[in-house]
């Protein structure tokens, strides 16, 4: 399947966030579009020079929703005032960034690169902090702001700014940790891994809260034992602890997790699956499966039918508890984003009504963020629009049906999250 020019295939929204002030900021390639109600402002239309020369790879908004920081693949960083997307400051990092997080009080932003070095900048001026960290390493903060993942399957919790002081590790994933989300109002962290599992961790003790769950099946993975004679063998390293029920080589990588503002619901999306998996969260018992939102083949209120293989790229909850997701598929006419809510407290999630204000916001985004997709012949469609920190650059093109190879192309990278250890 591939799109021809002009038939309604657009660059997907690879990243987005919904601020506390209900501004939806979407990243489409290197451009940003901020939508408030039906009003949109976008770098797609502005005549001023755009700070980013390559696609945006990560962004974060302050808690109050007044400032957004975006980081692009060309190492540029920009701070913007919302909702007008006024450029406040620009800066740069030395190596391609893969993650960004803003301190809970909104005064600092930290950026991490793929190898796990972290740098701090003030907000809103984006002045690099040189009063901390290793002077001979560009003042990188040795550790990381509160939490960071590395490819060795764990989350490292460090104190900020004394990031040389590692508080604890969150151990348990048997593949790289792919995504993190902080829990509002609680010292907890949700992780999703390349092993297809999701887990809840206490900050800063690192202990797991409740069982690790396989995102798709909602069941506990089976622990595997290690025997001492294994240690003496010469075989390559394979971590064991918990394995997924399915083949660990399979494509069940959790690509994004999000937490609802009431901290009672968690959403997770898995690569290759046209579904948003939902979990109830309890701060003492951890996660329990709570159904899912089926996107593949779903009929939206305005009559659009989503393709069977539609891929959610990112999920988040807004302040009212609505679930937003950005979509990717080859089928022309697919909306860039969708939004779901519960019509009544215990009803299943349903797409917002066609006459709701949110539908108007979605329509405004669709107009402002529609950049026709630029296809090269033979390009793997799924390599377009996937957040850069989940892609390893490859010249090879994989066939769309070869799911295992596609997952292998998503190299793990460093992910960042900032959390306050006090409950508020």
């Amino acid at each position: 399947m591939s799109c021809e020019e002009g038939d309604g295939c657009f660059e997907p929204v690879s990243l987005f966030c919904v601020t506390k002030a209900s501004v939806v900021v979407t990243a489409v390639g290197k451009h940003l579009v901020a939508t408030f109600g039906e009003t949109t402002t976008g770098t797609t239309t502005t005549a001023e020079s755009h700070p980013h020369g390559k696609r945006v790879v990560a962004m974060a908004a302050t808690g109050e929703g007044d400032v957004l920081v975006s980081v692009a693949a060309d190492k540029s960083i920009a701070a913007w005032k919302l909702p007008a997307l006024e450029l406040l400051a620009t800066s740069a990092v030395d190596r391609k960034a893969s993650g960004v997080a803003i301190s809970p009080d909104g005064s600092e932003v930290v950026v991490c690169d793929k190898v796990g070095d972290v740098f701090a900048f003030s907000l809103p001026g984006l002045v690099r902090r040189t009063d901390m960290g290793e002077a001979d390493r560009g003042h990188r903060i040795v550790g990381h702001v509160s939490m960071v993942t590395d490819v060795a399957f764990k989350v490292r919790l460090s104190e900020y700014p004394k990031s040389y002081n590692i508080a604890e590790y969150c151990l348990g994933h048997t593949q790289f940790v792919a995504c993190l989300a902080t829990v509002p109002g609680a010292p907890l962290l949700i992780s999703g891994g390349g092993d297809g599992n999701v887990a809840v961790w206490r900050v800063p003790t690192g202990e797991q809260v409740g069982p690790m769950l396989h995102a798709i099946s909602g069941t506990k993975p089976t622990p595997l034992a290690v025997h001492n004679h294994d240690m003496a063998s010469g075989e390559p390293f394979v971590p064991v602890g918990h394995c997924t029920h399915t083949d660990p080589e399979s494509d069940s990588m959790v690509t994004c997790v999000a937490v609802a503002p009431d901290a009672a619901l968690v959403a997770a999306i898995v690569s290759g699956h046209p579904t948003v998996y939902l979990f109830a969260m309890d701060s003492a018992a951890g996660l329990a499966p709570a159904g899912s939102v089926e996107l593949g083949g779903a009929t939206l209120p305005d009559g659009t039918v989503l393709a069977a293989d539609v891929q959610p790229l990112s999920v988040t909850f807004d302040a009212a508890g609505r679930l937003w997701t950005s979509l990717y598929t080859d089928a022309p006419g697919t909306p860039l984003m969708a939004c779901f809510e519960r019509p009544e407290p215990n009803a299943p999630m349903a797409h917002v009504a066609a006459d709701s204000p949110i539908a108007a916001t979605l329509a405004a985004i669709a107009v402002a963020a529609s950049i026709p997709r630029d296809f090269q012949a033979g390009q793997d469609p799924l390599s377009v629009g996937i957040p850069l920190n989940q892609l390893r650059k490859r010249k090879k093109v994989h066939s769309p049906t070869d799911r295992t190879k596609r997952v292998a192309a998503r190299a793990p990278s460093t992910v960042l999250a900032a959390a306050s250890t006090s409950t508020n």
Partner: protein
Amino acid sequence: MKYPVKPDLYPWHEVYPAFVKPEMSYAEMPKVEIADIGCGFGGLLMALSPLFPDTLIMGMEIRLKVSAYVHERIVAARANGNGCQNLAVTRTNSMKHLAKNHRRRIISQALLAEYAYTLRVGGMLYTVTDVLDLHQWMVEHLDAHPLFERIPDADVADDPCLVAAMTKTEEGIKVARNSGDKYPAVYRRIDA
């Protein structure tokens, strides 16, 4: 080679059978308190074992044949009634487990943060080398790290761990035979 993703999944009762029973939970079992990072042929492990008979000691060695040799040495000693119940070796890349993503596999601030994590406040870190440049590099980085405090050489001259580290390793014996210099540096892990 399988390695457990967390310490409580490691078969400690197979490694230290005299100290850890299969039915013990991870919380109640004794923990490793001395680590020889890069233990080579086990000389230091053997020297430390009788000095700290109730303390669990773990050696880490990346070379397969060398770690297998140390393992055999420990097994034989135990079978002959020569103690070593508190010793174990694991063939592992210490840098992998501690600092996987760092390209520079030498002491750096980042790696030291990992070491500090593994040590309790008041724990000790011993370094010895016959290469002056390396000694100066280690001292520079350890001095700069907020969680380590240097203990003057004079104050640790009689520390049995340091004596063992300087005189009981195969490297240390070789250096002495060649009348080389040995440069120690000992640090205490302090509070943040």
